[in-house]
């Protein structure tokens, strides 16, 4: 794309540099040109300085929004709106570390506001959502909620305000935020959790204000009639006249009222089902993620662990069979409404068949371990002792391993992350013949690397939560003690990015931290 200038002399040498540098910075150079540029920059300090000035100019033009505004210098927080570029319709994509950190900021009791400095204070952040779609022009700035009008058309959201209040809403809902203590609800329902720092949080409905004194309540508004309802689950909410501020009714936990055409009707019962909770959002999020996974052409098995006589493989093109449940009991999973299987006896397991030969496999599961009593705790094990078998286990010290059997299980070379007990965690193992490597991940982070198999894998008849050596009567004690509420197997190696997205999409709630230290 550039042309070298003919002739010698200092001026045209500079021109050559410019073209070469410009081409490189634009990403439009050949290998030969890169080599020439390397040579030039290696030898010539002046050329390096030119290069650096040109690169910095380009960088400023690309990242410095204050260059384009009329004001003196942009508020740093404005850069949040450019990064990451988040499309609401796409899966929850904020880098896990920053999302966690942002949530952590807002879960801390609000401290001295002066320490925040001169940056524009964040009024509210979206901390969780499931398939949320806002009407054009009535959505948040990425994850940031400023004062304004909002219209949620699809899905559900969990909003955390800077005073610590949590507001959960499902579509359709239309609301206005005046500040962190004043919401107006035009249509739909919300549930609010109000800590001491947010006492006084008020939801304005047509003709009436609902002021909370802590801790949990729901409001719903019918836009046709202008009528509203208040359900108090815990604590106390005062229903007040918006003009005179006179208290019309003090409603306590376990009570509900309806307001319509200027008159108040008391003596009702609060209805939990009508108002979304945080757990429900997680569950909704999971349901959407589930649909995506079931349709993945590379997925061999997807077990959503829905209570049933068998463990169904709901992949659109299943390769593994359904699992036969032996002994394991149905209990609750990551969210209310989500079930899991509990493995807590020596004879609890799920047996399934995964026929075929594979050059690469990925296993993923959401697991909550009760204990690590045994030297090896089985996640997935082929029956017997054959070449090509797969063994995915957690060792007593929390290290995870994934091997194709031929010989003993080896300890992973890099087990800096240990699987904890007592909390829901996302466990993933990848194993590949072409890569000659197996990797295990804990909550999206690489936890171990091991030498991989030399030949294809044939898992065959296998058990989740157990190992059946077949040729002896004793169970060889690898039984899992804990619960599993999701299990999936692919015929390829998932990338770290994909694994992190799965962790993000399946996390139990917004406060769940991937970090286990």
């Amino acid at each position: 794309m550039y042309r070298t200038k003919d002739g010698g002399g200092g001026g045209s040498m500079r021109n050559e540099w410019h073209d070469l540098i410009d081409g490189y910075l634009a990403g439009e150079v050949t290998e030969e040109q890169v080599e020439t540029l390397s040579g030039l920059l290696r030898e010539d300090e002046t050329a390096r300085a030119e290069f650096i000035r040109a690169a910095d100019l380009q960088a400023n033009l690309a990242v410095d929004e204050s260059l384009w505004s009329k004001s003196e210098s942009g508020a740093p927080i404005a850069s949040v709106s450019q990064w990451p570029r988040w499309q609401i319709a796409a899966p929850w994509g904020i880098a896990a570390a920053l999302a966690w950190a942002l949530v952590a900021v807002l879960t801390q009791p609000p401290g001295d506001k002066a320490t925040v400095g001169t940056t524009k204070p964040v009024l509210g952040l979206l901390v969780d959502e499931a398939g949320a779609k806002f009407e054009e022009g009535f959505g948040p700035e990425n994850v940031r909620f400023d004062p304004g009008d909002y219209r949620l058309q699809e899905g559900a959201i969990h909003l955390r305000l800077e005073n610590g209040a949590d507001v959960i809403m499902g579509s359709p809902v239309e609301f206005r935020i005046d500040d962190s203590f004043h919401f107006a609800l035009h249509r739909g329902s919300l549930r609010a959790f109000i800590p001491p720092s947010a006492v006084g949080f008020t939801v304005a409905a047509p003709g009436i204000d609902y002021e909370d004194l802590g801790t949990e309540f729901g409001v719903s508004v019918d836009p046709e009639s202008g009528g509203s309802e208040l359900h108090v689950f815990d604590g106390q909410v005062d229903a007040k006249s918006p003009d005179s501020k006179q208290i019309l009714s003090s409603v306590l936990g376990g009570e509900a009222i309806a307001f319509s055409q200027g008159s108040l009707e008391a003596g009702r019962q609060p209805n939990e089902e009508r108002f979304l909770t945080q757990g429900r959002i997680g569950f909704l999020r999971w349901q959407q993620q589930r649909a995506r996974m079931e349709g993945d052409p590379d997925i061999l098995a997807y077990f959503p662990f829905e209570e049933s006589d068998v463990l169904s493989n709901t992949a659109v093109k299943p390769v593994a069979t359904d699992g036969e449940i032996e002994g394991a009991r149905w209990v609750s999973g990551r969210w209310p409404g989500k079930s899991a299987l509990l493995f807590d006896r020596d004879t609890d397991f799920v047996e399934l068949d995964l026929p075929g030969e594979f050059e690469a496999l990925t296993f993923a599961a959401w697991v909550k371990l009760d204990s690590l009593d045994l030297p090896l705790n089985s996640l997935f094990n082929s029956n017997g002792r054959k070449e090509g078998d797969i063994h995915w286990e957690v060792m007593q010290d929390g290290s995870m391993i994934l091997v194709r059997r031929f010989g003993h299980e080896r300890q992973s070379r890099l087990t800096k992350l240990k699987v904890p007990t007592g909390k829901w965690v996302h466990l993933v193992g990848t194993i590949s013949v072409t890569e000659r490597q197996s990797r295990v991940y804990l909550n999206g982070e690489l936890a171990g690397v091991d030498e991989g198999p030399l030949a294809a894998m044939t898992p065959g008849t296998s058990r989740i939560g157990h190992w059946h050596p077949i040729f002896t009567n004793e169970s060889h004690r690898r039984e899992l003690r804990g619960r599993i509420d999701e299990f999936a197997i692919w015929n390829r190696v998932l990338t770290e990015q994909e694994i992190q997205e799965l962790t993000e999409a399946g996390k139990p709630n917004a406060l769940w931290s991937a970090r286990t230290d």
Partner: protein
Amino acid sequence: MAEKSPESTPRTCSHREFIRLFLESERELLRYVMVLVPNVSDARDIVQEAAVALWEKIDQYDPEKPFAPWACRFALNEARMFLRKQARQQRLAEEVVELVEAQRLQMTAELDQRRDHLKDCLQTLPVRQGEMVRAHYFDELSTEELSGRFGKSVEAVYKALQRTRQALQNCIEQKMAAEVGR
């Protein structure tokens, strides 16, 4: 901030403080990284990765000192790791990268001054040129997309951007020279 005792170093930086520091420095970190990795979306990914490393090592940060110079070490580290993953033929030689990085750090004061002048120099551009520069660099439209929008061939767009960058650099040079004279 917590006092440091000889036996232990309690976490000196809260989550909230880290977010504030990181967001304030983000632009600086991107500038450092883009000297090694000119592609802006790669640079954003790299700075995001660096955020994770920064948070893990936040206890090593001395709050008395400015954040960006300390943080840029991590960002440059991530940038170097990124470059190593690229095909050797597409990137500058490793020792050249080291030289460029070292020199960039020495040039910080000059580059910051140039950046200040850049804002004024952008105002002096003819409107179309300013629009084109903004669309390409800030809004990340490709030369093909610009060619459609501005009704020129891709080659003409490329040349126009080149001339505009040159004009900006000339303007900046003049302002830098004028400052010396004062």
